[in-house]
């Protein structure tokens, strides 16, 4: 297994309105990949469509040549923080333990080894001292670390994180990117939705630049060209242009 991800001719629409149009890409395994683009570009939608969480109009997603439903246990997904009910009666430790459920399977309860593993994953993100806290009683960065720990608990090989760096502290951000790079170095594929362009050179190996369509993809230097960025961020740059600002 190399955890190569191939997307062929993918289109998605909500209520008849096209949100993603004919997306094609093919990423080799063992890479840390940034999905970038302006707000509403369809980054989250792309992630959900690849994960088979929403209906696609047409198109195909293949992981090492296999459809998603055959490789679900190899895949971990960390949703946008806004998508979580932070008042839910659940502790940090239990949240991480949810990551073991796919392996535990139906009718069985997580046992001692699963609980131990969940604690180890919490240690990896430096959150073990908060194990008994309710998940709402954490800072944004801590919450994000807990959900990364849950993804680690899944023992997956392909990781999808939606905007993990939004609204979090620098320590958490450094810790998270460190872990993601470790995962990559161990041969896993890591996809990260990101909308801040400043750090992409430090963070990612490859980029997918998105705005409804895939504008460009490939190594970071090649994607971070003014021309393609201008196409993707058209509306914002258009405003700056009219204000007489040149980039």
């Amino acid at each position, binding site marked *: 297994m190399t955890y190569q991800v191939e997307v062929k001719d993918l289109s998605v629409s909500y209520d008849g309105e096209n949100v993603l149009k004919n997306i094609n890409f093919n990423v080799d395994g063992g890479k840390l990949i940034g999905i970038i683009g302006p707000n509403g570009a369809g980054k989250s939608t792309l992630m*959900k469509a690849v*994960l088979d*969480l929403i209906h696609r109009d047409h198109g195909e997603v293949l992981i090492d040549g296999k459809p998603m*439903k055959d490789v*679900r*246990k190899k*895949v*971990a*997904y960390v*949703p946008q923080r806004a*998508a*979580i*009910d932070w008042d*839910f*009666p*659940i*502790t940090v430790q*239990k949240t991480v333990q*949810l990551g073991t*459920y*796919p392996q*535990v399977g*139906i*009718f069985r*309860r*997580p046992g001692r080894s699963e609980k131990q593993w969940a604690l180890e994953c919490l240690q990896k993100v430096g959150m073990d001292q908060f194990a008994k806290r*309710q998940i709402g009683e954490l800072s944004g960065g801590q919450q994000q670390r807990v959900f990364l720990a*849950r993804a680690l608990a*899944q023992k997956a090989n392909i990781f999808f994180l939606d905007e993990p760096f939004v609204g979090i502290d620098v320590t958490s951000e450094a810790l998270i990117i460190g872990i993601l790079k470790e995962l990559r170095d161990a041969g896993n594929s890591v996809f990260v939705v990101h909308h801040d362009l400043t750090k992409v050179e430090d963070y990612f190996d490859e980029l997918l630049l998105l705005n409804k369509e895939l504008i460009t993809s490939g190594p970071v230097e090649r994607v971070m060209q003014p021309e393609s960025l201008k196409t993707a961020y058209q509306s914002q740059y258009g405003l700056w242009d009219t204000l007489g600002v040149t980039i």
Partner: protein
Amino acid sequence: MDFISDIQNYVFLQKALFTSIMVGIICGVIGCFIILRGMALMGDAISHAVLPGIAVSYMLGINYLYGAVFTGLLTSVGIGFISQNSRVKNDSSIGIVFSSFFALGIILIAKAKSTIDLTSILFGNVLSVRSSDMWMTLVIGTIVLLVVILFYKELLVSTFDPTFAASYGLPNRLIHYVLMILLTLVTVASLQTVGVILVVAMLITPASTAYLLTNRLSVMIVLSAAFGAFSAIVGLYFSFEHNLSSGAVIVLVTTVLFLIAFVFSPKQGIFWRYVRIRKNRNGATIRKKESFE
């Protein structure tokens, strides 16, 4: 106490007590999932929508459970269908569907001209519980508790984080409809204790009380069931001693428990919040004084 010796002497009172406790427990358990999924309104809808099902069952001479489950499910499917296939918001489609079913039920019950008494379905009449009703409640209670225990993990994940659940292949939609079936069963079991109109209170009030008191779903479920059962016992006692409507009294007991938790819950209660604010403020003034000196 008179009540205890009455229970020992009267079989109808034993049946009433047993059924009410069972109803308190299962409403408390299912109610936790209902409130955490933000489906309180759905609970109210389904409880009202069983009415035409009961009427039709009487007309056909079958057990009213079948008709009730049928219209209960039809309601939840109908609500989903309208909100998914139009721009009508979910709470509006709930309102449209359940009030139509309820209206239809009122007419059908009048037409059925049978022994069913609309008032006792609407408000319950726990002292008229027959043995067959009691057994049905027991069977329903066993089914509900078994499903929740066996699928606890799956119910937890799909309630807390449905997207994560779907990402590893859990059938969220199926889980939703299983919950709707359980909800209908619980409603039917509650008919005689609290009646159609007040079932929703048994579903959401004890669960909300428990929600204020704990950070763990398992503890919340146990507390909620305990509050439901406790309210049933105390409510039955008062309604029997003072000849009041049992459903109404039981519901008011759940409300009293809720108010106590609302005020005194260690983490969420407004009383402790007030004390903490006072303390912080005093602390702040003391510190200010120190800095002056």
